[in-house]
């Protein structure tokens, strides 16, 4: 059977629309965090990039400090637009988050991990739910998994072996008062990218007739 050839290039209009949807989603996420975690932060304007799977590790490593240890949470979501949401937070930020959410001076390892997972879950759920709401589709979230690892181990080549093209939507979350900073990456691949393009086109059509 011939493999379907996918057109994974975005037009400028599609990128603009996606950026706009992401801005709305990130706005919703910031509001959720303020409401639920009692932490007022900012989130940067998202960057949208399409790259080869082999470039993913390099792209992520370029945005973090390679000497630090990181808590990394990965959560899958499926539906017409599916993918993986990854939240990367340094050890120091994660400790500050644990202190804030558990209201303790020295949070335990379990408390830190749970706090990271909670923040990551709110971010993923809000951003992706809001994005998919904009695109008029439903998604299902899977149980997130988290790890405490060094910067070079965040992405292994074998982790992305099935992917050919990846779209990376990334932003930075910054709670200055609590000294918490993290990177969020929404990763989606091949068919999901094509599906996303179709959904964006449909939305553009709806809005502009």
């Amino acid at each position, binding site marked *: 059977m011939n493999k379907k050839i996918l057109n994974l290039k975005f037009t400028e209009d599609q990128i603009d629309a996606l950026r706009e949807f992401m801005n709305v989603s990130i706005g919703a996420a910031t509001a*959720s965090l303020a*409401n*639920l*975690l009692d932490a007022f932060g900012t989130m940067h304007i998202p960057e949208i990039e399409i790259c080869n799977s082999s470039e993913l590790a390099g792209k992520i490593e370029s945005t973090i400090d390679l000497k630090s240890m990181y808590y990394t949470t990965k959560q899958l979501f499926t539906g017409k637009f599916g993918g993986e949401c990854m939240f990367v937070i340094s050890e120091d930020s994660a400790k500050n988050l644990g202190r804030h*959410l*558990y*209201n303790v001076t020295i949070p335990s390892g*379990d408390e830190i*991990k*749970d706090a990271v*997972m*909670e923040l990551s*879950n*709110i971010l993923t*759920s*809000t951003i992706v*739910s809001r994005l998919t709401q904009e695109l008029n589709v439903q998604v299902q*979230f899977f*149980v*997130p*998994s*988290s790890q405490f690892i060094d910067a070079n181990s965040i992405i292994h080549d074998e982790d992305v072996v099935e992917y050919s093209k990846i779209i990376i939507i990334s932003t930075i979350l910054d709670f200055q008062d609590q000294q918490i900073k993290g990177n969020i990456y929404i990763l989606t691949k091949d068919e999901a990218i094509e599906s996303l393009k179709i959904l964006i086109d449909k939305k553009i059509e709806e809005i502009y007739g």
Partner: protein
Amino acid sequence: MIEIKYPDVLLDSLENGHMILDDNFIVSYWNRWLAINTQISKDEIIGKKLDTFYPDINYKVLYRKIITALTIGTPTFYDADSNAKFITINRNKVTTSSLKLMQQQVTISPYIAYENKVMISIYDISELFEAKLMIKKEIKKVHKLNNKLEAEKEIIDKNIMLMRTSADGTIIDISTFFSQFFEFDKKDFLGKNVSIFKLADESDAIYKELWKTIRDKKSWSGELKYKTFNGKEKWVQSRVMPILDSDGELFEFSAVYHDITNEKLLAELYITDPLTKLYNRVHFDEIISFIVEHQRKSDIDFALVIVDIDHFKSINDTYGHQVGDEALVSVAKTLKNSLRENDLIARWGGEEFVIMLKNVTLNEAKAIVEKVRANVEKNRITDSISVTASFGLTKYIKGESAKEIFKRVDSALYEAKRGGRNRVVVK
């Protein structure tokens, strides 16, 4: 007719725990799985607060997770790897279990948002968690072993001379110690043929034997004389082993070397005359004693020659000992160069030399020695000095002792001297 409560039947039939809770932690549903595993019945808990039964739960965190689920409309989770259990459930597994309590995956899903109710689902992930722990333990072991292997590999690499070649002798890998010993950069070795170490004047015979042995898929051990990048000669004790592929065919060779240069130099010193660089009397004695003792057919067919430089004392007296030494060196060189490759020559003492001509008849030996004598006569020590020498020659007789043949050859030399010198006398 029996009224069937479908959601109850559905939730009771599931192999995991489900409870419905509001933001005041009042339990409004408790399924069969929970009732069995916690030993708390539906009747006991429904309508009551969860903290009555489970006071150890962090209710501040639980409240936040409930509100999050209700607000964002998607599930929230507890960390499944956490050591803290949401509710404590004992495990009854008797065999091969490292977990005493059930490891739980806890999901809080929005249920009836306007009543602030959520469904808390508890999944038993103990087996999965145990497998994960086991894998972690095994990975730790593998890492430990790898580190040990790496450390040992480093020790070997830095302290042992190793080489790996392809079946045609192309160098694939060498140890750091090897490259340091031969004064090459490792990268300069790779891809080259192993013959780069062979000395130009080294006999091919030993290499032919080596290749024949290893191509026959056998290991070869022996001493090889190699040269370093800077041309220094080195002796190495070598063991070359063939590596076969799964079909039993030659795939690669691996070799281990040990530097024996110093031992070789010491051994050479022990058997060499320091002035003429010929073998010394000790070594010649050892060889002839061995031949006489073992009487091997291939060894006993030889002629013995004693050479004495004529009027050597007057050279020393007239020109001094330095010229005398030069004369000895020059005659030694002429003698050696006049002989065949297999013949053996040693300095016997003072101005005397001893020669063993191998596999010759007495007539053939006489012809050779006559030629040697003529060469000595022709040779000039300096522009104004030349010497002659007298030669005693005899053939070894099977079974006789070394003493007997030396007595005969000495007698022949004596006659040559008495007969006017610069001549060969056969006995």
